C-alpha cells in the first residue's frame, strides 16, 4: 500500500495554524477497516490537531465490475445484478433498471404492476432510511436507535420475504411488470405496517430530535450550500436539505408517481441536522404514498406483453429514478442484440461522496464521521 501522503499531494491544503509548538500535521488513514466508514471506504485525513485540513477518498475496494458483467449478460439475466449495488435499497435499483429497459423496448408495465412497484419501492425507501438512521446515530454515539430501527425494518423485510422470497436482494420486478402476484393478505400486511410505523418514527424522533447533544452534534456540521450541491451533482435528501425542492418523482415522474399526492420535504441550512429532518419527513411522505397506493390498487394483469427474446432496437436511453440516496440513473446502449452493448449506472452514492471533502474542511474528526453518516453512502454502489 502506497504511502498515504502521496495521495494528498494535489490538494490545496491550508497552512496549519502556527503555534509555539509548531506541531506537524497528522495524517490519519481512516478505513478501509474502520467501524464508521460504512463498509470499505478509505478516507485519508490530514489533521491539524483535531481539525481537518483535507481529505482524500480512496475507493474501489468493493469494485466488482458490474458494468462489464452487464455487457456479457442478456437484459433479463442482468436484472438480479443491480440489486447488489445499493443492497439496502435493492428494490429501487431493480425499478430503475426495469423501467430503463422497458423504455428501450417501448413497452409499459400494466397499472397493477406499477402500483405494486410503487408500494414496494416506497417500503424500501423507508427501510433504507431506517438503516441510515440507525447507523448514523450509532456513529454519533447513540446506540439505541440502531436497534429500534432494525426492529421496525424487519417488518418491511418480512413483507418482501413473503412477496418474493428474498429479504435484501429482492429481485422483485421483471422487465415488463412483476413476476409475482401479491400474496394473500399483502394489503392487510401493508396496512398493518402503515398503522404500526408512524408511532415508531415518532419514537426515533423523541430519542434524537429533542436531544440537545444530538442537535449540537448535527447543527452547523457538514454544511453545504445549494449552489455547491448543484455544482457537485449532489442529489437526494442532501440536495433537498440545502433548500432545493427537487425530487425526480415530481420533476420527471416515472412509474405512476404523478398519481399520488405527496410533499417534498426540504431543509434550510443544508447541515447534518436538516438532512436528518428531511429523511425523517421523507419516511412519513413515503407512508402517505403507500397508503394511497394500497387503497387504490387496481385489479388486472401484472405483466405486459414482453417478447420471449428481448432484442431492443438500436439506440440508447437514459432513465433515472429517485432512489433513497439520490438520482439513480441507467444509461443503456442497445446494439439490437439480446445483450446490452453498454450499461452505465449513475450511482448517487458515488457522486454524493465527492462532496465529503468540502463538507468537512475546517471541521473536527468527529464531524467527518457524522458527515460520512449523513451522506448515506453504500459502498456497494460507490464501487459497483
Amino acid at each position, binding site marked *: 500500500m502506497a504511502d498515504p501522503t502521496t495521495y494528498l499531494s494535489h490538494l490545496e491544503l491550508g497552512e496549519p495554524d502556527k503555534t*509555539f*509548538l509548531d506541531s*506537524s500535521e497528522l495524517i490519519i488513514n481512516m478505513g478501509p477497516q474502520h467501524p464508521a466508514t460504512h463498509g470499505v471506504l478509505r478516507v485519508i485525513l490530514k489533521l491539524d490537531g483535531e481539525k481537518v485540513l483535507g481529505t482524500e477518498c480512496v475507493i474501489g475496494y468493493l469494485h466488482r465490475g458490474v458494468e462489464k458483467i452487464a455487457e456479457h449478460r442478456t437484459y433479463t439475466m442482468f436484472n438480479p445484478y443491480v440489486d447488489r449495488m445499493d443492497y439496502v435499497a435493492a428494490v429501487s435499483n431493480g425499478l430503475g433498471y426495469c423501467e430503463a429497459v422497458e423504455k428501450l423496448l417501448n413497452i409499459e408495465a400494466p397499472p397493477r404492476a406499477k402500483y405494486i412497484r410503487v408500494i414496494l419501492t416506497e417500503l424500501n425507501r423507508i427501510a433504507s432510511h431506517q438503516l441510515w438512521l440507525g447507523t448514523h446515530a450509532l456513529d454519533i454515539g447513540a446506540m439505541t436507535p440502531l436497534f429500534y430501527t432494525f426492529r421496525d425494518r424487519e417488518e418491511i423485510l418480512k413483507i418482501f420475504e413473503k412477496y418474493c422470497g428474498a429479504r435484501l436482494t429482492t429481485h422483485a420486478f421483471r422487465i415488463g411488470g412483476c413476476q409475482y402476484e401479491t400474496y394473500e393478505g399483502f394489503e392487510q400486511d401493508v396496512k398493518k405496517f402503515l398503522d404500526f410505523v408512524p408511532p415508531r418514527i415518532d419514537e426515533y424522533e423523541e430519542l434524537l430530535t429533542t436531544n440537545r447533544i444530538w442537535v449540537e452534534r448535527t447543527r452547523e456540521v457538514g454544511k453545504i450550500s445549494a449552489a455547491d450541491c448543484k455544482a457537485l451533482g449532489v442529489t437526494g435528501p442532501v440536495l433537498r436539505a440545502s433548500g432545493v425542492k427537487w425530487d425526480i418523482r415530481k420533476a420527471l415522474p416515472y412509474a405512476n408517481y404523478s398519481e399520488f399526492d405527496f410533499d417534498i420535504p426540504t431543509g434550510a441550512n443544508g447541515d447534518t441536522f436538516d438532512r436528518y429532518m428531511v429523511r425523517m419527513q421523507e419516511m412519513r411522505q413515503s407512508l402517505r404514498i403507500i397508503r394511497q397506493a394500497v387503497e387504490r390498487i387496481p385489479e388486472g394483469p401484472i405483466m405486459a406483453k414482453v417478447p420471449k427474446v428481448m432484442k431492443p432496437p438500436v439506440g440508447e436511453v437514459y432513465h433515472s429514478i429517485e432512489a433513497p440516496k439520490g438520482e439513480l440513473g441507467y444509461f443503456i446502449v442497445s446494439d439490437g442484440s439480446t445483450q446490452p452493448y453498454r450499461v452505465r449506472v449513475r450511482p448517487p452514492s458515488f457522486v454524493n461522496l465527492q462532496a465529503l471533502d468540502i463538507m468537512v474542511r475546517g471541521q473536527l474528526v468527529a464531524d467527518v464521521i457524522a458527515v460520512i453518516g449523513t451522506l448515506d453512502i453504500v459502498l456497494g454502489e460507490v464501487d459497483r
Partner: protein
Amino acid sequence: MAPVATGFFFYFLSGLTLLGGILVITQKNPVHSALALILGLLSQAGLYLMLYAPFVAGVQIILYAGGIMVLFLFVIMLVSIERTQREEQFNKLWLVGLLSAGALGALFVLVYAKGTGLFPEGAAPPAESNNTQQVGQLLYGQYMFSFEIASLLLLVAIIGAVVMAKRRT
C-alpha cells in the same frame, strides 16, 4: 500509633526520589524522563507523609503528578521524539557544571555544619488530625500577602500565555 519501619521507608522513598531524579536527566526519550520525574514526585509525596504533612502530600499528588505532569506529557507527545533522540543530550559546559555542583554541595555542607540551630531537635510532631486546618490558617492568616502575590504571579503567567497564543492570528 508509632509508624511502622520508619527508617526503612525513609531510605526507600529517598532512594526512589534520587533514582527518579537521575533517570530524568539520563533518559534519552523525553517521555521516559517525564515518567521518571513522576516517580520522583510521588516518592516525595511519600516523604511529606512521613513528615506528618498529609495535606502537602495530597497536593503534591493532585497538582504535580496528576495535573502538571500530564500537561508535560501532553506537550512532549506533540513534539517529534525522533528528533530529540538524535540530539546531543548533555552540552559541553563541564566547567560551569562542576562549579555550580561544587557551590551547591558547599552550601549543603555549610547549612549542615552551621545551621543546627535552625532545626529544633526533637520537636513534637504536630497532631495529624488538624494539619489541613493549620496549613489553611497559616496561608490565609500569617502569609496572606505572599500567598496573594504568588497567585498574582500565576495570573500574569496565564495572561502571558493567552497573549502568546493570540498573537499568531
